[in-house]
């Protein structure tokens, strides 16, 4: 019986690994080996040239810059956006569970429903608003967009988590004369680790991988990594350098993969701690 379980789990793991395997082995092959067929074969000649090219010399636009400048654009966008939306979510969750007021559930419902809006719908009006606010084509504009469309999720996570946080502790602190922010700062925030991990993983993944907003609302100096990767992969003429494409793809995915590997164990713990409980 246990052997069977191990077998099933391992087979599934192989299935899940397959695309990554294909990408990895083909990113370290010379191009002629790829075009020769055999996408599953291990490389006969091992080379890291595709990785170097993808990072620093592949053709993204008129100049062969590789993906590296765009990597930093992405970092500049993703770090503030994740931090701000997580903090806002925490504050909202705190208000919605510990400072209840009339109709607060309806407000929460409104924020939650907002998670479901397809992004294609908001493209044009959002562009107009960013223009009016003077944020068109800036990293700050992108941060705003990602905060707006992420805050529903982060609020959901923190609200469900704080719902299980003993309200008596909050009341006791109140009686001791602690104010709104002091309670949040001293009592709730220090114990929010697990759910913060869930929120950060979720937001980081979504924002890092976003293409539509990045392509539409950035200009030449703020285009994120996904747009550059798309330019690399989608180039329609000439020889397709699949090995460079795969190396670039893995490079672009590296930060999210890292986040999952490092924070993965806290992820289940965080989910356990709140968001899937009623």
């Amino acid at each position: 019986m246990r052997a069977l379980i191990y077998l099933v789990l391992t087979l599934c793991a192989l299935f899940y690994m397959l695309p990554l395997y294909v990408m990895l082995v083909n990113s370290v092959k010379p191009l002629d080996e790829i075009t020769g067929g055999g996408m599953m074969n291990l490389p006969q000649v091992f080379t890291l040239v595709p990785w170097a090219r993808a990072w620093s010399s592949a053709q993204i636009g008129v100049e062969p810059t590789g993906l590296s400048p765009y990597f930093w654009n992405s970092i500049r966008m993703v770090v503030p956006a994740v931090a701000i939306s997580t903090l806002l979510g925490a504050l909202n969750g705190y208000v919605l569970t510990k400072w209840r007021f009339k109709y607060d559930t309806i407000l929460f419902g409104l924020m939650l429903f907002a998670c479901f809006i397809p992004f294609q719908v908001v493209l044009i009006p959002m562009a107009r608003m960013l223009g009016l606010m003077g944020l068109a084509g800036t990293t700050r504009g992108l941060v705003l967009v990602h905060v707006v469309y992420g805050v529903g999720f982060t609020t959901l996570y923190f609200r469900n988590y704080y719902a299980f946080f003993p309200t008596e502790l909050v009341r006791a602190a109140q009686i001791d004369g602690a104010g709104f922010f002091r309670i949040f700062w001293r009592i709730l925030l220090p114990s929010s680790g697990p759910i913060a991990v869930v929120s950060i993983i979720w937001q980081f993944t979504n924002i890092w991988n976003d293409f539509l907003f990045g392509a539409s609302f950035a200009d030449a100096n703020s285009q994120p990594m996904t747009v550059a990767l798309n330019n690399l992969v989608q180039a329609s003429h000439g020889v397709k350098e699949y090995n460079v494409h795969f190396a670039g793809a893995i490079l672009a995915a590296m930060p999210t993969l890292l986040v999952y590997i490092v924070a993965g164990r806290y992820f289940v713990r965080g989910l356990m701690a709140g968001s899937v409980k009623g």
Partner: protein
Amino acid sequence: MAVSARMDFKSRLRIWLPKLVLSPSLAMVLVFVYGFIAFSVYLSFTDSRLLPSYGWVGWENYSKLWRLSHWEISLANMGIFAALYIGSCTALGLGLAIFLDQKIRIEGVLRTIYLYPMALSFIVTGTAWKWFLDPGIGLENVMQTWGWETFGFDWIKNRNLAIYTVVLAAVWQTSGFVMAMFLAGLRGIDNEIIKAAQIDGASNWNLYRRIVIPQLRPAFLSAFVILGHLAIKTFDLVIALTGGGPGRATELPATFMYSYAFTRNQMGIGAASATIMLMTIAAIMIPYLYAELREKR
């Protein structure tokens, strides 16, 4: 009221502070979500083509929309896709979670492997999947070179079966996340209940069917919400994998809307399809949210 009027500024601030803290998020959502939805609904009644314009045309865009076989195809695909995707992800996620919960020694490694696809965007994995599914170089070819001569797997080239390859890739991407949610749910169940049932001699099958799975109800609901919203937003996947083809066989409402609003310069029809999508989402989500939020009182 009379009491609050006499309150000093500080205590009045204290009462309003929570609402003040909530208000920026709320304002953002009202403007950037509900305002934009209203705008989009309005556009669906206008003659907008390349850019928004404000000539009123009544229901014309809707009547055009329903005359398009392309729209019917994308709705039918949505039905197939959503049902299979949500169903398979839930089944696979639950199965993996139950197996992983049997004190597996390499749980940490396996869990990361199941989860990692969620970390990748389809701009990244689209090419790998395309290769894998392509009969010429992918699975079919590999199996045949390994000696299974009659093996055939060319679904992606078949207009009746291509949608299932989209389901396959989508399940691959998110089932790990669903697994994590169920795993968290399983870990949250009180061990005493399970032990008691085992003492009573319940078989494993009955234990899970009668006791464990009913306890996972909240996890099921969360999974449905997340999967439902991902199903509706599915866009990159189709673009990367099939481009909507063969023919128009794998178009979904999101790709339909994008193509009419942005590449075909028929923003009015695009907005009409968006309105119908939003109404469908609302019809499913509002009862759910109502039930969920009321229960918590």
